[in-house]
């Protein structure tokens, strides 16, 4: 198939996903994955530039996730959130890993990817639900958000630590990452002031350069840029809090040009025939993930949020972006095959939708209208 034709198709799918998203009120990411599934299963191949943009978008999404962490909130709720968020990662990771390894018969590294991909909690899904219910203003909502930050952090830590392979460049990668994490928050305010507020957007280019550099060095060092990208976002979150317009511009560039290809690529690598042939395995992974979240999160939620423990547990069971990022990492690195990828991403998507619906429909705490 002609590459330019495929490019035009990609452009159309990106546009179509946005239109559908606005019309039906479902996130553009989910629609892009869905359209990617359709395109991929109709035989449209992932072009090299789509693959590259998709990979870079995964790093940008991780950076943005870090930049969206509310540090003061995390500090204020650290003890409880570390416990809930930590257990929210740990139990699903261990139980899903064991299930993949012993029951599904996946190899060790593929099982580790399964454990990571299915232990995540979707901060964005949780946030949307909390805002809609008004719970984001309450102590319950703030604690759930803080716990979700911790689960995200645990996910990127696991993804980086478990798959690290050390060579000479790994040290270079680590040293440069640490240097950037220390230096960038110090020089960025000056840089933003000196070069900011221009249509040519030097601030965005600075961040993109840093993320490209991390991807390059991570690749040389047989590692991955997700951890430093997330921490960079984290250490810059206060700066972005003061420069909200800058964060908004990063999001605009990301949503217009980058993330569509991340989610389309994810969808295009999902095989419908594999899903149909593995429906029981898919259901089993889903049940294990949700059950593990309940085993890990419900008891501690009962202690800290007794009035909304089940609601909290269901929200902590949601997953989307980091689950997809982990799965794509596994696929790109050859750790999981396309069939395993299809199953994992399908379970991740199911975990974004099903627990949210159940939480909102049956367990949503009723709070009064704000004055």
């Amino acid at each position, binding site marked *: 198939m002609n590459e330019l034709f495929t490019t035009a198709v990609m452009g159309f799918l990106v546009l179509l996903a946005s239109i559908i998203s606005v019309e039906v009120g479902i*996130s553009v*990411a989910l629609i892009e994955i869905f359209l990617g599934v359709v395109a991929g299963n109709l035989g449209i191949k992932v072009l090299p530039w789509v693959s590259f943009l998709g990979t870079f978008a995964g790093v940008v999404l991780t950076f943005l996730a870090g930049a969206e962490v509310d540090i003061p909130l995390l500090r204020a709720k650290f003890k409880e959130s570390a416990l809930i968020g930590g257990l929210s990662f740990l139990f699903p990771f261990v139980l899903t890993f064991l299930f993949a390894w012993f029951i599904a018969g996946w190899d060790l590294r593929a099982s580790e990817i399964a454990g990571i991909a299915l232990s995540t909690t979707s901060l*964005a*899904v949780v946030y949307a639900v909390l805002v809609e219910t008004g719970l984001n203003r309450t102590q319950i909502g703030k604690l759930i958000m803080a716990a979700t930050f911790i689960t995200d952090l645990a996910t990127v830590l696991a993804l980086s630590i478990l798959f690290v392979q050390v060579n000479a460049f790994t040290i270079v990668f680590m040293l440069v990452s640490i240097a950037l994490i220390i230096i960038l928050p110090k020089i960025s305010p000056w840089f933003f002031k000196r070069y900011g507020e221009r249509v040519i957007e030097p601030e965005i280019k600075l961040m993109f350069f840093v993320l490209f550099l991390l991807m390059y060095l991570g690749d040389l060092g047989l590692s991955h840029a997700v951890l430093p990208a997330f921490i960079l976002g984290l250490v810059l979150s206060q700066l972005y809090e003061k420069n909200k317009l800058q964060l*908004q511009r990063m*999001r605009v560039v990301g949503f217009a040009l980058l993330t569509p290809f991340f989610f389309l690529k994810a969808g295009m690598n999902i095989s419908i025939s594999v899903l149909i042939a593995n429906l029981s395995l898919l259901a089993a992974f889903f049940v294990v993930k949700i059950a593990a979240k309940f085993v890990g999160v419900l008891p501690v939620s009962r202690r800290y949020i007794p009035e909304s423990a089940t609601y909290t547990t269901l929200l902590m069971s949601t997953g989307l972006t980091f689950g997809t990022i982990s799965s794509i990492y596994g696929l790109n690195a050859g750790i999981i095959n396309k069939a395993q990828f299809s199953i994992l991403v399908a379970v991740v998507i199911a975990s974004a939708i099903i627990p949210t619906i159940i939480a909102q429909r049956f367990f949503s705490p009723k709070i009064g*209208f704000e004055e």
Partner: protein
Amino acid sequence: MFKKILVANDGSEGAIRALEKGIELAQIFGAELWSLSVEGPLPAYAAIIGEVEEARIERENYFKAIEDEAERIAKEKGVELKTKVAYGHPADVIIRFAEERNFDLIILAHKGHTLADRFLLGSTSDKVADHSKSSVLIVK
């Protein structure tokens, strides 16, 4: 007869007519008048907070403009209007808000401007009329 009147306001032409009727009744009965705008659900299953946050900001700006316009119309008629914007499914929020704040009359337009919602969820005015404990006036 009516002490607290709630007008459901989505900014549509019908909602403006409902507001004008509310102002008229508030003047007749000396009632307290409120305008309630309901923001529909945020993008479900979003990828990053930014997607939700941007949608939230866009909608807040949109509904702020509706509130300002409603206040302007009421002020022109010499009536004090209190406004409120809330999230959720319109009918549910209108009914809950009216119950929680003890409104004795809800006024809303026969048709708002969300065709898709009407198709998928049924008419907001029908639902409010069916399920609200307060009196309901549907303005055509």
